[in-house]
């Protein structure tokens, strides 16, 4: 059963390499996108931490900023 699945009537090399390349591309794109996302989020948290109290309070009034900060704490 396993041998049949791997061999695919002699086309195993082609079929598995096509599926392998697809899954590898998916994985690579996901990792690259995730790294970019985490990097931007960390940059935001760092900048936010450097704001003085009044500016931080002003920035915190925006819902989107609260959302980014809460998302960063979940990483």
């Amino acid at each position, binding site marked *: 059963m396993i041998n049949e*699945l791997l061999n*695919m*009537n*002699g*086309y*195993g090399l*082609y*079929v598995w*390499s*096509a*599926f392998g*390349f*697809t899954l590898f*591309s*998916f994985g690579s*794109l*996901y990792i690259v*996108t*995730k790294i*970019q*996302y985490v990097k*931007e*989020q960390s*940059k*935001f948290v760092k*900048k*936010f931490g450097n*704001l003085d109290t009044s*500016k931080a309070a*002003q*920035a915190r009034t*925006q*819902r*989107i*900023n609260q*959302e*980014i900060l809460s*998302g960063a704490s979940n990483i």
Partner: protein
Amino acid sequence: MFKIFEPNKIFLVTSRLPKYVVGLFCIVLIIGLAEALIFSPEDYKQSDAVRIMYVHVPAAWISLGIFTSITILSISGFIFKSKNLFLIAKSLAPSGFVFNLIALVTGSIWGKPTWGTWWAWDARITSMLILLLFYGMYLIVWRIYEDKEKVYKISMIITLIGIINVPIIKYSVDWWNTLHQPASINILAKSSIHSSMLFPLGIMTAAFALFSLLIFLMKYNTELIKIKNKGLDRL
């Protein structure tokens, strides 16, 4: 008109969606892979090599769909002066590029056992390669130019020229005598593909669509955080 798409409002939704989309994607992909690799029948002519279709065809469809969407969004962004539409278009491009690449590579792998060659300068394959170049140019423009207005204009021009290639890709197999087989699936007429193969193809297409949605959401959220980062600098 586009108030519903305001980044401040939309982020509340888009930041929560990826975890649900990734879960759904994994489930659909596992079902799709089982159907494509185990349960679907082999072809009477191509034998098991036909299984490559389950990654090649959805990748080609989605890359064409994404490029068309990018063009519509770019034109709309330009007409309605909406930067957010350009941002949505930009966030769609990486997955479109990767799907285009997957379609070309898996097509090449499929070509070897069926046509006896990895590559042919066939109308369908060449026009797909041209689409990949347009995707590449579109992505490069966003990287090299600092002036956003310039980026919006140039990227829109690229998509406007590139969209001419989309119907060429679609009808290349009908207009020219090519190695590539004609379309087996027709929305307006009866499809020549058997339901036992159409079902896994549909599931794999759904999985690929969910993956492109996931990448789009992550990329779009990254772009919105980038804007907010600049906003903090201005405080």
